[in-house]
């Protein structure tokens, strides 16, 4: 259409930069590189089989004998030939065979065997001048390059070759023209515009559903002969990866890919004199061309003949009104179906076709007459027949071209670069917009094939893409700081991550789904599987699974944490409550193996867990840790539960260690600024104290009493030993106490007095006694 050959790589580059990316640049014809043109010189009956013949074949490279089963093989004709060892499409390898005692060297091929048509019953006759031995792709001029373009959903205009030619033409400065159709009539009849009803070739056409189908054109061609397409059309079909069906179907497909106008050919004589475009009724059925019985519903647009449905409008036709080999008169439909209706219909039917794909994205309402006339001349060219009368054009409420105003100043405002008005006009006209200056604006008429352009900004995008995004500078210009502050929760998450990685835990990210129902669990209406039917309410379930996974790959030492969202259903709210949590889990060695360490007592225990919990709570700055039956609980100011830590129950193989886990809500606390405490300048006095603590008394209350009894100078208490043994009336715990007085040197005596008070008070209040040596 461009009147010249373009380099495929260059074309791909131009398209990617201005229109849509090219996914693949593939040579066409390579798959038939092994197939050559061969001349059958002589045909004789197979000595041992009635239906087989033995052919003497001139391959251009010698004469060979080939056994053939095709009824149409004729001496003196040329056919595609694949020699022994060559490969046909579909990875079909030709071997040397003995068929009923006669050796067959290679194979003469049918259309379907070389992927050029559907006819498989007989050989494909080649009416070409090429001498035997010429490769089939050369002889049929199949060699070309196919570009697979990933078209954006807003650009239906480039779903066809004319659209692509238009875009490439704009880039290359060429005005594309449609190719000549060999054998087409000089002219076709001008369609006649009517309202919502009209008559053609004895068929009354009526649009009842003008909303779903605002424009419907029909042409009649009488006297067609359904048969195979000419080679040029077959090879065009082959080049887009589509298979030739018959001349009329190929012709309609050709127009679909050339002009983005889906067409449908009905057998005129089966229609009973009427075509009605109406809303389907719930429960109506028809059998589509793919053989499926489809149930329709109200809202779908249906095409009916005098007595029954014949097509789901814009999606697929019914088997009954299909063009068959005996059809001689056809009614050719060229319609516009409303995108939203098509989308609803194909979604309900779960049926996407080349036609529905295009109608759903929007076809060219204005270009229909040209498309229909080109289709008529193509059909006449490839299938014969004649146009009995002028096509009818049912268009009850004609819609003109859309007009959009463009302010050149706004172009500069949005794109950041001044673009001269003339340049803007040139860009727009190069892809079919009509531009007229009006006051200080441009009045832009939008071509029918660009339904995506509805407002000024769409035209600015046209200017930007046609100028080339990469042509704009990348200069950093001054900017103002924003009004949105950083979210503190992100800062908190980062601090928690630092604390936990510093303690050796690896961060993980699990999916947010869960299989566990529960009163709080938020169900997903359309989950991918039952394992993912709910949103998680905690992180530990996932972490415990990850521990088990790591065991399954023989990893004994597992240290993981996760920060993520958990979800909780709240009352009748349609949206679940969301909360960031942090959870951690440790099992196995608390230190890496080292040759100097003893391996005993090296596994994580409850006290490591308690530290991790304390660290996490300290970083969050919210919550108090208390004990409960299973471990520890973190509670907030209001007494609400913020988290927990305990030994986690897992399905443990024998060789692994105990598992400890914690989970805490991430809540932003008040940010407090720490005040500096003056460093002490007086010496400490230290004392060790070994106490026997009776059952039922814990160290926390012991220490509280210690602090109270000690007076003002007890600076710190640290437990450095615990042991349990029979017969001492409890367990023995040893503390290291540090006394210090600010501003004066504390005497031994003062410390001894304090220790004495502590011991007396403990004995009185808790029955905690000094351990006897």
């Amino acid at each position: 259409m461009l009147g010249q050959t373009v380099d495929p790589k260059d074309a791909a580059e131009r398209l990617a930069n201005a229109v849509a990316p090219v996914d693949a640049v593939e040579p066409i014809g390579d798959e038939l590189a092994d197939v050559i043109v061969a001349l059958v010189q002589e045909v004789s009956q197979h000595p041992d089989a009635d239906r087989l013949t033995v052919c003497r074949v001139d391959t251009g490279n010698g004469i060979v004998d080939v056994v053939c089963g095709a009824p149409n093989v004729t001496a003196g004709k040329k056919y595609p030939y694949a020699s022994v060892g060559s490969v046909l499409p579909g990875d079909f390898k030709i071997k040397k065979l003995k068929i009923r005692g006669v050796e067959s060297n290679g194979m003469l091929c049918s259309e379907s065997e070389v992927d050029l048509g559907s006819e498989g019953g007989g050989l494909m006759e080649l009416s070409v001048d090429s001498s035997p031995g010429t490769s089939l792709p050369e002889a049929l001029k199949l060699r070309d390059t196919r570009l697979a373009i990933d078209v954006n959903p807003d650009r239906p205009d480039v779903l066809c070759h004319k659209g692509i030619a238009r875009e490439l033409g704009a880039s290359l400065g060429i005005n594309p023209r449609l190719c000549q159709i060999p054998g087409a009539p000089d002219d076709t009849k001008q369609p006649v515009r009517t309202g919502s009803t009209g008559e053609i070739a004895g068929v009354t056409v009526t649009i009842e559903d003008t909303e779903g189908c605002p424009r419907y054109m029909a042409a009649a061609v009488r006297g067609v002969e359904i048969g195979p397409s000419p080679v040029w059309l077959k090879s065009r079909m082959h080049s887009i990866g589509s298979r030739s069906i018959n001349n009329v179907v190929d012709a309609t497909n050709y127009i679909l890919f050339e002009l983005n106008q889906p067409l449908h050919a009905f057998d005129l004589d089966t229609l009973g004199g009427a075509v009605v475009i109406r809303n389907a009724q719930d429960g109506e059925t028809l059998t589509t061309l793919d053989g499926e019985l489809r149930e329709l519903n109200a809202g779908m647009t249906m095409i009916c003949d005098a007595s029954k449905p014949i097509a789901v409008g814009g999606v697929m036709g019914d088997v009954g009104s299909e063009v068959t080999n005996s059809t001689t008169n056809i009614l050719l439909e060229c319609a516009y179906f409303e995108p939203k209706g098509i989308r609803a219909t194909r979604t309900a039917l779960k049926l996407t076709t080349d036609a529905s794909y295009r109608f759903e994205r929007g076809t060219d309402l204005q270009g229909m007459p040209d498309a229909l006339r080109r289709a008529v001349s193509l059909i006449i060219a490839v299938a014969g027949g004649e146009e009995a009368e002028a096509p009818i054009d049912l268009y009850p409420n004609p819609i003109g071209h859309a007009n959009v105003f463009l302010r050149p100043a706004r172009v500069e405002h949005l794109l950041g670069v001044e673009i001269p008005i003339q340049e803007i006009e040139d860009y727009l006209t190069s892809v079919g917009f009509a531009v007229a200056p009006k006051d200080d604006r441009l009045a832009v008429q939008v071509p029918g094939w660009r339904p995506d352009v509805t407002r000024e900004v769409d035209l600015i995008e046209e200017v930007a893409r046609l100028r080339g995004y990469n042509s704009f500078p990348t200069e950093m210009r001054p900017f103002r700081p924003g009004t949105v502050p950083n979210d503190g929760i992100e800062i908190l998450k980062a601090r928690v991550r630092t604390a936990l990685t510093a303690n050796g835990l690896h961060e993980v990210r699990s999916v947010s789904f869960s299989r566990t129902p529960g009163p709080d669990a938020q169900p997903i209406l359309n989950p991918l599987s039952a394992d993912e039917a709910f949103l998680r309410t905690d992180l530990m379930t996932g972490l415990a699974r990850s521990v088990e996974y790591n065991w399954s790959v023989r990893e004994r030492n597992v240290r993981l944490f996760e920060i993520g969202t958990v979800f909780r259903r709240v009352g009748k709210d349609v949206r679940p409550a969301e909360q960031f949590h942090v959870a951690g889990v440790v099992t196995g060695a608390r230190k890496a193996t080292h040759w100097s360490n003893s391996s005993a007592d090296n596994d994580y225990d409850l006290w490591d867990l308690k530290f991790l919990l304390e660290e996490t709570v300290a970083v969050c700055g919210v919550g108090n840790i208390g004990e409960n039956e299973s471990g520890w609980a973190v509670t907030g100011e209001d007494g609400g539960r913020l988290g927990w830590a305990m030994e986690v129950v897992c399905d443990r193989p024998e060789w692994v260690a105990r598992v400890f886990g914690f989970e805490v809500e991430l809540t932003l606390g008040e940010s407090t600024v720490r005040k500096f405490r003056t460093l002490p300048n007086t010496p400490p006095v230290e004392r060790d104290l070994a106490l026997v603590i009776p059952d039922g008394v814990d160290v926390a209350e012991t220490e509280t009493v210690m602090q109270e009894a000690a007076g003002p100078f007890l600076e710190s208490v640290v437990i450095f030993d615990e042991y349990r043994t029979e017969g001492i009336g409890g367990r023995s715990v040893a503390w290291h106490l540090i006394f210090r007085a600010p501003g004066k040197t504390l005497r031994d005596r003062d410390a001894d007095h304090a220790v004495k008070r502590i011991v007396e008070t403990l004995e009185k209040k808790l029955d905690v006694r000094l351990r006897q040596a």
Partner: protein
Amino acid sequence: MPTTAAREQLDGIRSTSDSIPEADSDRISEIRRDLLGRKSGRLTRLLRSLRDLEPGERKEIGAAANLLKNQVESALEAREQILSQQTASDDEVDLTMPSRKGWRGALHPVTTVVDEICEIFREIGFTRIVGPEAETEEYNFTKLNIPLDHPAADMQDSFYLAPGVVLRTHTSPMQAHTLEQYEPPIRIVVPGTVYRRDPFDPSHSPVFEQIEGLAVDEGISFVDFKAAIDFFVARFFAKGTSVRFRPSFFPFTEPSAEVDVGCPMCSGSGCSTCKQTGFMEIMGAGMVHPAVFERCGVDAEKYTGYAFGMGPHRIAMIRHGIPDIRMLFQNDMRMLSQFVD
């Protein structure tokens, strides 16, 4: 024992103790025995004999003796330590023995990518915020100019929690929330988890991370947009990485762009990772569509802006050569520990 004798003994002990810093290890044991021996050590005997002294003397001599005992003990200890270190280094320690390692945790590779991206945009004034994962259709679709009958709003693509409520399919709803809550200038990045109804396969996950960016002010243009993205690419990717902007389509941006960078695997010469194109898509972006401003109550004539979205999972896979997205969800210690830095 008379006081003078005791004082003399003290002096004698003191002079012996003064020689400790020069003593060798044999001499050290000798001194220890001589002064502190349990029965006949000179200091031991002196302390034992204190009770024979007058009370006044006892106190004075006792204090001095006790102090001396402390000094002797610490001097001996200090010397022994020095000697033992000398011995050790003389014994040819095998320094190729492995060090004593501590466990160190790694950040998830996706977290590292998210943090780096946010940090880079912070340099050009973007603050970091987050938003909810359950969204109404209004915020996930309608306010972003995605009609509910657009393919992106297909039931197949989104998880529904209730009619009209979805797990957000992108972080873009935060554009709408922010435009409604704050006056421009707005410069934000929004990392967060998003959901698409795609089953797991090597390159798809129903749950993944996204980072949204939004800049809105008077006079922000396509040039500002390109400059910001260019700045990001120059900071994030290897030196000299090329950037390419291509037309694309998103309902909430116009003009819309896809941003490609030169393939980090083959530096643009074409390989299997970039499907021979030499480029990798890293983000979808564009100028904020005026319809989004209108739906969020912002004057679309006065304000302009740009927005972008990136997928940290994909970027982490490209960056580290991770072949399968599922590995980023498997929580395998052997993999995670590779990312300790």
